[in-house]
C-alpha cells in the first residue's frame, strides 16, 4: 500500500518535472532572457546580525531581495500578562528586561505612567537624576547601535572602541545602583538611592572624555569612504512613508519629521534644558546612523546642564506607601526612549495590581517597515537596513 502511494507520488513528481522542462523550453524559445530562480533564504532566528531572535524569510533573486516575510515572537515573554499578576512596584524590574539596552529609560517610562495614574509628585532632585541616568543610558544604547552598525558593514574595530566607552557608563551605573545592566533604579515617586559622593563629578568627567573621543570615532566610522558608500542613499524613506509606517525615534527624525517626545510633549525637567532634537532629511541608512551619533552629542549637552542645575534634597517623595495603590482610572504617559516613543498605558481597578498594562514599544512599530523598504535592495544592504532600524527584541516581542 505504502509502496503504491510512493510510486504514485514519484510518478506525479516526474510528470511535474517533465511539464516544467517542456515549459522551460518553450519559454526559452520565446524570450532570450536568462531565466533565474528565486532563492529563499532563512535569516535567523539565530544569525550573527539578527540582533537577537528575528527570523526573516528573504527571497533573493541573485543578490537582490524580492520579498521579505518577517517572523517575530521568539522572545515573547508575555510581560503584559505578567504585569497583571504583580504589584506596581514589582513590575519595575520587568521593564529593565524589555528594551534591555536602555533599561533606565524603560523604568522611567513605566514609573512616569504610574505616577500619572496615582498622582504622585516627584522631588526635583529625583527628576534631575532621572534625566542624567536616562541620557547616559541613551548614550550607552546608541553606542551599541553604532558598534553593531559597524559590524554589519564589516568593520570590526569600532565595536571595541564603542563598547569601551559603554563600559565606562556601566561603571557609573554600577556605582549608582549596583547593577551593570538591569538597574531597577527608578521608583514610583522618585529614584531608589541618592548618588554616591563624587558621582556627579565622575559623570562630568566622562562626558568631557566622550566629547573628545566621539570626534575620533566619528572620523573612524562615519568618515570612512567605504562606510559612507555602503550607507548613503540606501533605503531612503520620505517623511510621509515614515509616518505612515508609524516609525518613531531617531529613525523617524532622520526622515525629516521633528517628533521628539522630549520636545513635543515635555516631561520631567526637559523644558528647563536647552537642547535640539536631531532632525535630518535624507532618511537613508547613513542619516539614521548620523542621527544616533548626533544624539549622543545632544545627550552630553543635556547631562552637563542637568548636572549644573541639580538641586539638593530628597530623591524619593515622602510618605509613599510600600505598595502603590492608584485609584481606579486610566493613564497613558510616554517618554522618548533611545528607540522612539515608549508609552505605557495602564488601567487600574483600585487594587494593588494593575488591571491592564499596555506597553507601546517603539521597536515593534519601527521594525514592521522592514519588508516595505528592504524589498528591492541588495541582500547585504537588507542586513544594514535591519540594523539601522535598531530593533531590540525584548521590546519587539515583549
Amino acid at each position, binding site marked *: 500500500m505504502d509502496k503504491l502511494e510512493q510510486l504514485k507520488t514519484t510518478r506525479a513528481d516526474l510528470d511535474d518535472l517533465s511539464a516544467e522542462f517542456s515549459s522551460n523550453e518553450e519559454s526559452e524559445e520565446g524570450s532570450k532572457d536568462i531565466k533565474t530562480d528565486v532563492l529563499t533564504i532563512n535569516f535567523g532566528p539565530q544569525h550573527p546580525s539578527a540582533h537577537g531572535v528575528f527570523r526573516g524569510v528573504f527571497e533573493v533573486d541573485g543578490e537582490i531581495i524580492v520579498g521579505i516575510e518577517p517572523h*517575530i*515572537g521568539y522572545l*515573547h515573554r*508575555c510581560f*503584559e*500578562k505578567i504585569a*497583571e*499578576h*504583580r*504589584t506596581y512596584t*514589582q513590575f519595575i524590574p520587568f521593564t529593565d528586561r524589555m528594551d534591555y539596552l536602555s533599561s533606565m529609560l524603560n523604568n522611567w517610562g513605566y514609573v512616569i505612567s504610574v505616577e*500619572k*495614574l496615582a498622582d504622585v509628585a516627584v522631588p526635583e532632585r529625583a527628576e534631575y537624576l532621572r534625566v542624567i541616568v536616562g541620557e547616559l543610558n541613551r548614550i550607552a544604547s546608541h553606542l551599541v547601535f553604532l558598534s553593531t552598525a559597524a559590524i554589519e558593514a564589516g568593520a570590526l574595530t569600532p565595536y571595541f572602541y564603542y563598547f569601551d566607552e559603554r563600559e565606562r557608563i556601566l561603571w557609573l551605573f554600577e556605582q549608582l545602583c549596583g547593577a551593570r545592566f538591569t538597574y531597577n533604579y527608578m521608583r514610583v515617586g522618585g529614584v531608589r538611592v541618592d548618588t554616591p559622593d563624587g558621582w556627579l563629578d565622575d559623570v562630568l568627567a566622562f562626558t568631557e572624555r566622550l566629547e573628545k573621543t566621539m570626534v575620533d570615532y566619528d572620523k573612524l566610522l562615519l568618515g570612512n569612504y567605504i562606510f559612507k558608500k555602503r550607507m548613503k542613499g540606501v533605503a531612503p524613506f520620505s517623511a*510621509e512613508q515614515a*509616518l*505612515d*509606517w*508609524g516609525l*518613531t525615534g531617531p529613525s523617524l527624525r532622520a526622515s525629516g*519629521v*521633528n*517628533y*521628539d517626545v522630549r*520636545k*513635543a*510633549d*515635555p516631561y520631567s525637567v526637559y*523644558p528647563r534644558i536647552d537642547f*535640539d*532634537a536631531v532632525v535630518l532629511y535624507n532618511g537613508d541608512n547613513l542619516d539614521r546612523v548620523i542621527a544616533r551619533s548626533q544624539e549622543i552629542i545632544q545627550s552630553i549637552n543635556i547631562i552637563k546642564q542637568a548636572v549644573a542645575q541639580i538641586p539638593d534634597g530628597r530623591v524619593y517623595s515622602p510618605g509613599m506607601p510600600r*505598595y502603590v495603590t492608584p485609584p481606579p*482610572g*486610566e*493613564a*497613558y504617559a510616554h517618554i522618548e526612549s533611545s528607540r522612539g*516613543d515608549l*508609552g505605557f*498605558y495602564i*488601567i487600574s481597578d483600585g*487594587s*494593588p*495590581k494593575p*488591571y*491592564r498594562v*499596555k506597553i*507601546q514599544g517603539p521597536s*515593534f*512599530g519601527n*521594525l*514592521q517597515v522592514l519588508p*516595505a523598504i528592504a524589498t528591492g535592495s541588495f541582500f547585504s544592504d537588507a542586513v544594514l537596513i535591519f540594523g539601522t532600524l535598531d530593533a531590540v527584541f525584548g521590546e519587539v*516581542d515583549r
Partner: protein
Amino acid sequence: MSDEINVNDNNIEDLPAKGMIVQEKGLGYTLTVDRKDLFKTATGLKEAGFDLFLFVSGVDYPNHIKLVYRIYSTKRANRMAFVVKTEVPKRDPVVDSLVPLWSAANWHEREAYDLFGVEFKGHPDLRRIFMPEDWVGHPLRKDYSDGHMLVSDSDTQAKPKLSVVDSQTDDGDEDAGDEGKSEE
C-alpha cells in the same frame, strides 16, 4: 522647533464627532465610538491631520473587549495626541481594520488578534504574530490560563503564591515543544 509652537489645546473644532470628545484624566482627548463608526471616524481623523498611528490595544472586560487606539498628529499646530476607544462584544469580536488608513496598524492589529482574539475586517494578513500558529487560546484574555499561569486572582496579595513557585520547579522532563500548549 516644537517648543516655539503655540500650544492651543482647544483647537478641536475641525474634528469629526467633536461633540463626543471628552478630556479624560490621564489620557487626554478621548473619543468613544461605536465599532460601526470606527472606520468613518478614523478616516475623519486622518484627514484632519492625524498621521502617526502609535498603537492599538485591547482591554479584556467580562463581557466585551475594549479597543484603545492612540494616534498623533505631527502636522497640526498643537501637535495633539488622541485616544479613540471602541468596544467589541466577546461573542463577536470583529471590527474594521485601520490598515488602509495607516500601514502602521498592520502589526499592532495582528498583535491584538493574537493576544485578544479580536478580528479585524479588511486586514491584509491577519495571522498570529507572537505565538506559534497552532497555539490555542488568546493569552491576554483574563480567563486564559495554563499549567504555569498564576490563577487569575480575586485575592490581592502582593506576593506570588509559593505553591506555584514550587510547582514550576519540578515540572519534570516535559517535552519543551508541547509544554504550555495545553488547552484554555
